[in-house]
């Protein structure tokens, strides 16, 4: 039977998280021998949390605590070899996304990333930035797959405290040192991947309004008020984030990291509300995984009206948001 290796990196001594458990459940569904490869400073807690799900292997040590290509790649490479894996699954964290293509190359294997479904050895993923959906399979091995969060149910781990695992050695050398994680803008933390609602602000917030004037400060207040009242994550159109790059006085809490769309992110939230955003195709492709969509726009013929939102309110976002913030506040 083919060996299916699930790669998981630890988070500072914590048990394996939800995305990792989803990948583990997907692996169990493939009908091979499941092995679990852990990477981190100390893998005891992670091993205990998934004990019983398959053979446990780990690359451990201080060098493997930090997210870093060279050490993550050598750890994964060693685990793939030790497990004799034909299929390698991992959650699409930034850490695995950075190193697994290179590991696939070293292992003379193939890789598919951004996998959104896996059924009977056939995967589903999107092409052209979420505009075309394809399903495919491969004969080559080892086959690496990076699975997106929410791919399926999570493995209901029984776990076992003090579970034993096999230690695998890997080359710890690197010319890189990870120094830490920073939020790009001081002050507001506006991007919240776990939020129920995505609130998108478009360039309309910076345009002349019906009184002939621009109301940037008011726009900033209304947007921040909305985030506070609703707990939403803030997304933006490219036009709005680009304005800040061009030296205009724009919303100081926005950066390119907020951009949703073709050259931005494709966030996962249950609901999305777009305001002052036209709903053009390069923007809306970033809404692929948002099921429930509403928009507020002055223009009844904007992109949202053409099958891209469930509800379009043809209204002034300044007026609507003022009322809405009062209701949510």
């Amino acid at each position, binding site marked *: 039977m083919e060996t299916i290796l699930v790669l998981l990196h630890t988070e500072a001594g914590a048990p394996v998280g939800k995305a990792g458990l989803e990948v583990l459940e997907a692996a169990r569904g493939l009908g091979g021998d499941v092995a679990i490869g852990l990477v981190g400073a100390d893998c005891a807690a992670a091993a205990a949390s998934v004990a019983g799900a398959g053979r446990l292997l780990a690359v451990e040590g201080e060098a493997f605590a930090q*997210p*870093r*290509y*060279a050490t993550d*790649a050598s750890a994964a490479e060693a685990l793939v070899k030790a497990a004799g894996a034909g299929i390698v699954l991992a959650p699409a*964290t*930034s850490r695995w*996304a*950075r190193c697994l*293509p*290179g590991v*696939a*190359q070293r292992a003379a294997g*193939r*890789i598919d990333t951004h996998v959104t479904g896996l059924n009977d050895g*056939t995967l589903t993923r*999107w*092409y*052209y*930035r979420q505009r*075309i959906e*394809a399903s*495919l*399979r491969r004969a080559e091995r080892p086959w690496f797959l990076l699975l997106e969060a929410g791919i399926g149910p999570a493995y209901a781990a029984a776990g076992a405290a003090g579970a034993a695992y096999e230690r695998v050695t890997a080359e710890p050398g*690197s010319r*890189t*040192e990870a120094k830490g994680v920073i*939020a*790009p803008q001081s002050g507001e*933390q*506006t991007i919240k*991947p776990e939020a129920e*609602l995505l609130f998108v602000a478009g360039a309309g917030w910076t345009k002349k309004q019906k009184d002939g004037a621009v109301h940037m400060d008011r726009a900033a207040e209304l947007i921040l008020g909305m985030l506070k009242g*609703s707990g939403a994550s803030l997304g933006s159109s490219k036009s709005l984030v680009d304005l800040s*790059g*061009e030296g205009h006085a724009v919303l100081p809490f926005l*950066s390119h*990291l907020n951009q949703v769309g*073709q*050259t931005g992110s494709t966030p996962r939230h249950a609901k999305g509300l777009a305001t002052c955003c036209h709903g*053009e*195709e*390069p923007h809306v492709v970033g809404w*692929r995984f948002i099921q429930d*969509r509403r928009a*507020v726009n002055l223009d009844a013929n904007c992109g949202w009206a053409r*099958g891209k*939102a*469930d*509800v379009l*309110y*043809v209204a002034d976002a300044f*007026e*609507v948001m*003022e*009322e*809405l913030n*009062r*209701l*949510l506040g």
Partner: protein
Amino acid sequence: MSYQIVVCAGIVPDPLQTLEPVSTPQGPALKNEAMLPAVLDPWAAHALYEANHLAKNMPGSKVYLVSLAPKAKLQQVLMTIAQKVSFELIALDGPSTGFTDSHDVAAALAAAIEAIPGLDKSRLLLFGGWESAARAAGATLSMTGERLGIREQFQGVDSLTVGSDGSFEIRERVEGGKHLVSQCSGAPAVLGWATGNLPEPPNSPQVGMQNMRTVMPALQKAKPAGVAVTQQYASVALPKQQRSTRIVRDVAAAEVARELAQWIRGAH
């Protein structure tokens, strides 16, 4: 300190075009693919702007643009991009579709880079977009780097700062809208760029003229890349659901707000 900065950049259909998949004997493709207006892959274009900026600040540095695309299409795209930044083109003739495999594209790119006369791997910076707008796998650049033996790699890069000792401070996008800050001792390295910090450079006729002297011969020399679709596609389709949008107009802002508040709170 000077670098050889190799930027890998493909071309993709202009994002405002409507895309429709078709099936061909060579595998899935886009309808009228050869007719669709194309642009330089956006994140790779940012990588090119960053390379240009870095080369200007590091005298003696040189920028190479390596592109695998149908020759004629690439020529059209270069008419614009060659006005903006100086580079030496290395062209490979082959499909620019997203349906081919990163593994094969990486093999072709790495071979072309290895063949650059005077390539000095100790000064090599391999740049590109962290994901393409076609396959968006985030794999090609990394695999190309591995083939070239480069094991310091960064993806989703928004900034690179070179220290006086030649070390790099690199910021990569990670979860939750944050940046991972890393210190790397220097070249060689792979940097897959996200948006970076630079605006699109303005057109410069001088740059355009200078580039054109090398672009046309490079296009003529472009070798077939030998890249084909090898995966077994079961289906390739447009997403099924087109929403039927309910358009609400002539309703007071307060009423819209009430409906939205209910929706946000979960009661539809």
